[in-house]
């Protein structure tokens, strides 16, 4: 029962982390409402950025790494919020990568819940091991956002910190789960295969001599 609760908690945390990671990905230019960061009249997302004019919003084509559209828009060179070079924005590729890895972890945790794989310490070891790069990528996403947008980060960007904390909690719970399943299996092994050791009473010794 307690194992079920722990696995459910892990699944809940990883689902929350997944949703938190999804929001920055679907930000501009995919959706017009959400933005990873805002700076003057521009909104930034993972796959591009948009420039808000008086009448319309002009967005760059969807791709990894920003392109400079400043000449087409206003004739002035626009800088990124942290004065980073445009090539650095290619690091935003960690967002979809992290989302993919977290999705895989989510599926693995779901398998623990719905199948008997949760009783296998080896499978749990693999899942726990997989949670480490998931945590690292999630943290990298947050650091990349901080590096590029610093204080101009909007709430979907800050959600990455929450996602990192959720994944860290999952990671810790998975390692604990592996330990407890390992102990449980060991105890089960003892209880199933135990053979009663015969005991002999010293009173009934009879000696021929």
């Amino acid at each position, binding site marked *: 029962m307690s194992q079920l609760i722990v696995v459910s908690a892990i699944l809940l945390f990883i689902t929350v982390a997944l949703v938190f990671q999804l929001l920055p990905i679907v930000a501009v230019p995919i959706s017009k409402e959400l933005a990873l960061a805002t700076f003057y009249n521009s909104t930034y997302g993972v796959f591009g950025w948009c420039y808000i004019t008086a009448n319309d919003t002009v967005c760059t084509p969807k791709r990894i790494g920003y392109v400079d559209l400043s000449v087409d828009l206003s004739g002035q*060179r626009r*800088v*990124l919020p*942290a*004065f*980073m*070079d445009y*090539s*650095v924005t*290619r*690091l935003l590729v960690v967002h979809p990568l992290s989302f993919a890895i977290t999705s895989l972890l989510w599926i693995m945790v779901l398998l623990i819940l719905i199948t008997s794989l949760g009783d296998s*310490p080896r499978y749990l070891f693999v899942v726990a*091991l997989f949670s*480490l790069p998931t*945590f*690292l990528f999630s*943290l*990298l996403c947050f*650091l*990349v956002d*901080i*590096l590029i947008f*610093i*204080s101009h980060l909007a709430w979907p960007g800050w959600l990455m910190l929450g996602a990192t904390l959720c994944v*860290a909690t999952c990671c810790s719970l998975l390692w604990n789960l592996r*330990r407890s399943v*390992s*102990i449980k*299996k*060991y105890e089960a*092994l*003892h209880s199933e*295969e*135990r*053979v*009663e*050791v*015969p*005991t*002999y*009473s010293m009173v*009934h*010794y*009879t*000696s*021929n*001599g």
Partner: protein
Amino acid sequence: MTQYTPWMVVQGEEYESCQAQQLGSGILIGKVVPHLVSFVGRVTFNSYCVHGYPVYNAVKFNRKLSHYPLLQEQNWQKFISTGSQEEQNGSFPYGIYPVILSFTANFVMTVFLTLLSFINIKGKRHRHAARLLKIGSTIASVNIVIFVTCSLKQLHNEHEENGVTTTGGIMDLFYERLVYSILDLISFFLLQLCQVMIVTRLFYRDSEKRMTFFLGVLLVLAANILWSIPQFATSDEEQQDRWEILAPFVYLLRIAVAASYASTIISYGILKRRYCLASSQMVILSVITALVVLLQPALFLADVSNVWLSGVGELFNSTCYVGSTSIVWEWLERLSVVRKKEEAQSILGRPIYEDEQGDYRIANYALRVQHALTQRTPNNTDSDNGVELEQMSPSSQVGTSTRDTGSSCGVVPQNSTERESVYQVNFKQKQPFAEAAKQKVSHACDTLLYFADQVILKSLGTLSMGSKKSITSANREALVRKRIGLDRPNEVYVYSTKDVNFDSDRDEDDTQST
């Protein structure tokens, strides 16, 4: 003024004073002028600038006798006034004094921590990790000593030649000298390996220690190889374009690894908070440890938010690594002393965990032996000694059921794997391919793990191979004799016996008497 972060766009303003100015005709006076004084019809004045930014003269200046032209003074005021982000290069934190202060502080801290690691870290336990820490911190100290010497020499030369001292020269020296990069790479690699060993120490189970070690070493290797690629890549523009994204990625990876290390250490401290709060010294050391491990992520935040000096994290990298290794090491040593003191008052020894038995082999083997013995015991009536063993319930049922099948000579029916005796030996049984392959792979894994345990982990842990060699048998014998009191055979001790009365006994007596 220099650009601290290579991937940062610095949009500096153009200063007119840095361009050539036509002053017209006039008399020039000075040692560089032929005949000391000469009349020149057309004078072109070019002020001394670095990377297009004005530099003010550092020498003692008499404003009444000679002063800068108005344009220079205006440009200088514009340069030092802190306006927007891109104009901050002229602010005080980017001046020569804070940079010198940063480097000298870095120098003092690194050398001090290195000396501390040589004085404090002793003993044969964890000797490999201790050696790595000492070598790594020594290389970091040598690096910073060379750098501070070279930068002071460069400042002296600049002052002699141009009468100015610029930050740009020092920063160029810091980023572009290959020798610093190589020494940095070696010292960071060794210190990161030491950090891996520190994290390995935090786990008690051998399987977890082993896994942490392998994963940590892999991560450290990957991070350092990736870091060295853009550092040592050729200056070919095509290659630079290819690797330009790698430098910020590795920078962030290092911060991520440092943040993970910090969170691991802090969470361990929270788990062992009882030991951390054992004494006032431990409290202070725990606080310092938490601050030191958080220094690198904090400097990253300071860098990106530009609170002090952009790129200050890079300047303090060596101090961060040396500090977060040697101070954490000392903290762990003291924690283990407090823990052992507590363990000495209770049950001694390290607990054995169930997953240290690969596939529960020992447990399975023990159970099989037990099973086999219980099968054989009922038939073992030792008539020679005249001893008859009467089996008691409840295990009599097991004995009865196996009595017919069990053989006194150890002959076991071939079709029953359950009834294999411990005395049975099977020769040249042909194994299926899958089983044989599995056995080979398992053997290879076992050999690898054995190597890790014997060569790496055991040398870190309690079973030090080197210590076994170094302690001679005579020493050991003397140690044992001392422990059991045989070194002082003539001393006689008299122990007094005393009845121990418990309060509860007295209460019972009182109630009986009443």
